[in-house]
């Protein structure tokens, strides 16, 4: 077990380079199951979820090697099982992508219910609805989702709610189905586009990713042999932007796609924080005077739910009372009790957090309850007076590559300590 020990109130200054997107990587790696040849994937973040997925593929018979820390070469031709055990994926929230990939390859899949962070009921019904529309029979017994089809046939699927997981999973299942599949009311998140780019580079025929209608013409095989570069992590970039705004100083967040940050950039600007765009970078200028804000999380291009807890930490410094309404998950407020240990004044009313601003946070021991809650506690620790200890760092390691090293390079006093 490890914890972060943070001595707060040090301004952040300098450049930080953003790693590859966790949310894209955890979908692209299972997608390699569909490919007959070798796949080379660059800019893979060195994070816990990627390590788990690599272990899963290896245990199923895939050949996986790291060319360097962030470049994976995967060949899944020797995978001959459609079964994933609970032990393999109990800590992984994105394990359901294995269903779509295995169903697409073997016409059958047996995968345990998703594990990982717990911030609310994860509806899998849209995935099941789509698999059934493609011709699969889906059963859930003893915590295992089993999908089986004699053949998968293209169809039209209207998603009742915008779901990133269901959109990607149905793309995976449909990519080798007979005929054309149309997904309507599809999610538009950048990692949906990145997965489509990967599959197309390997030989798929997917159009419309990034819009609300995606068309997939089934192909006989994905020949592979191509190189794909994972997009920069929108949430890691946002975390550093918010931290920079909170801690003061001037940080340039590099190697990002500024377009993906528009909802955050607009909100920070509204709060009186200066953000400058320079090609693939955003420069954030910390400000002592931060204005209150009302935020609602929504599917892309709305404000990302994965930046909700971090934003709550920043709003502790704002003048006046702010609110964050959670529009994606049922329960994303587990960070509230932990951040209150540091003196934050917050309350949760239904799906809304009400945050009193102009509070001087003070260092305290706190524990990460999930990945993004952990990031929020680190930001709170950076602005708090005195020493903060953030426990359960393994949650943070699931989705952030070298978080404490990157903050240290910006001038933060943060270290990783074995407990």
């Amino acid at each position: 077990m490890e914890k972060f020990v943070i001595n707060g109130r040090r301004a952040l200054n300098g450049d930080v380079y953003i790693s590859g997107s966790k949310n894209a990587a955890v979908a692209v790696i299972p997608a390699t199951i569909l490919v007959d040849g070798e796949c080379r994937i660059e800019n893979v973040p060195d994070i816990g979820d990627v390590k788990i997925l690599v272990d899963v593929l290896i245990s199923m018979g895939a050949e996986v090697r790291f060319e360097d820390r962030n470049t994976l070469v995967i060949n899944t031709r020797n995978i001959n099982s459609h079964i994933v055990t609970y032990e393999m994926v109990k800590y992984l929230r994105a394990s359901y992508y294995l269903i779509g990939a295995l169903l697409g390859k073997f016409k059958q899949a047996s995968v345990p219910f998703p594990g990982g962070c717990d911030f609310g009921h994860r509806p899998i019904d849209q995935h099941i609805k789509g698999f059934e529309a493609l011709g699969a029979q889906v059963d859930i017994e003893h915590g295992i989702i089993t999908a089986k089809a004699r053949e998968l046939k293209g169809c039209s699927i209207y998603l009742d709610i915008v779901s990133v997981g269901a959109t990607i999973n149905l793309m995976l299942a449909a990519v080798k189905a007979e005929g054309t599949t149309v997904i309507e009311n599809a999610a538009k998140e950048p990692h949906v586009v990145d997965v489509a780019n990967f599959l197309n580079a390997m030989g798929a025929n997917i159009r419309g990713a990034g819009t609300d209608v995606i068309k997939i013409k089934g192909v006989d095989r994905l020949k592979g042999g191509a190189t794909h570069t994972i997009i920069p992590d929108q949430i890691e970039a946002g975390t550093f932007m918010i931290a920079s705004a909170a801690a003061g100083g001037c940080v340039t967040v590099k190697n990002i796609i500024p377009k993906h940050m528009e909802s955050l950039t607009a909100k920070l600007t509204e709060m009186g924080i200066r953000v400058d765009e320079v090609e693939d970078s955003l420069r954030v200028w910390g400000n002592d005077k931060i204005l209150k804000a009302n935020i609602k999380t929504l599917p892309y291009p709305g404000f990302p739910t994965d930046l909700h807890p971090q934003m709550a930490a920043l709003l502790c410094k704002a003048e006046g009372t702010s609110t964050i309404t959670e529009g994606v998950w049922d329960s994303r407020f587990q960070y509230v009790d932990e951040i209150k240990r540091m003196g934050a004044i917050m309350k949760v009313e239904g799906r809304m957090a009400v945050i009193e601003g102009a509070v001087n946070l003070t260092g305290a021991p706190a524990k990460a309850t999930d990945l993004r809650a952990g990031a929020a506690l680190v930001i709170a620790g950076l602005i708090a007076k005195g020493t903060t200890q953030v426990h359960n760092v393994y949650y943070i390691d699931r989705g952030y590559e070298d978080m404490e090293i990157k903050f240290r390079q910006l001038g933060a006093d943060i270290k990783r300590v074995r407990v």
Partner: protein
Amino acid sequence: MLPCYIPTGKMGVRDAMVDKETMMFKMEKSNADQAREILTTIYQALKERGYNPINQIVGYILSGDPTYITNHKNARNMVRKLERDELLEEILKYYLESGRQEEKK
């Protein structure tokens, strides 16, 4: 932007002909030239990275997501130098004008 030097004065080019001062004047590239340069560069970059360039560019124009454009050869930054509607306008103009010229032949 192409920097070039022409003699000019307060009253403009005609006045400039009799003015001996030399000033720097930046000449904007036309949208057509810029669109051609952008499309050629990103096409080449996408091709070199093994993607289907036409599909990727269509995806970008439809969705507006630069994820479609590789970062290779700085293509992702370059594509944002023109708005999508301006790019599409130049593509349509070129296509339709080429078609008209073909008909004349």
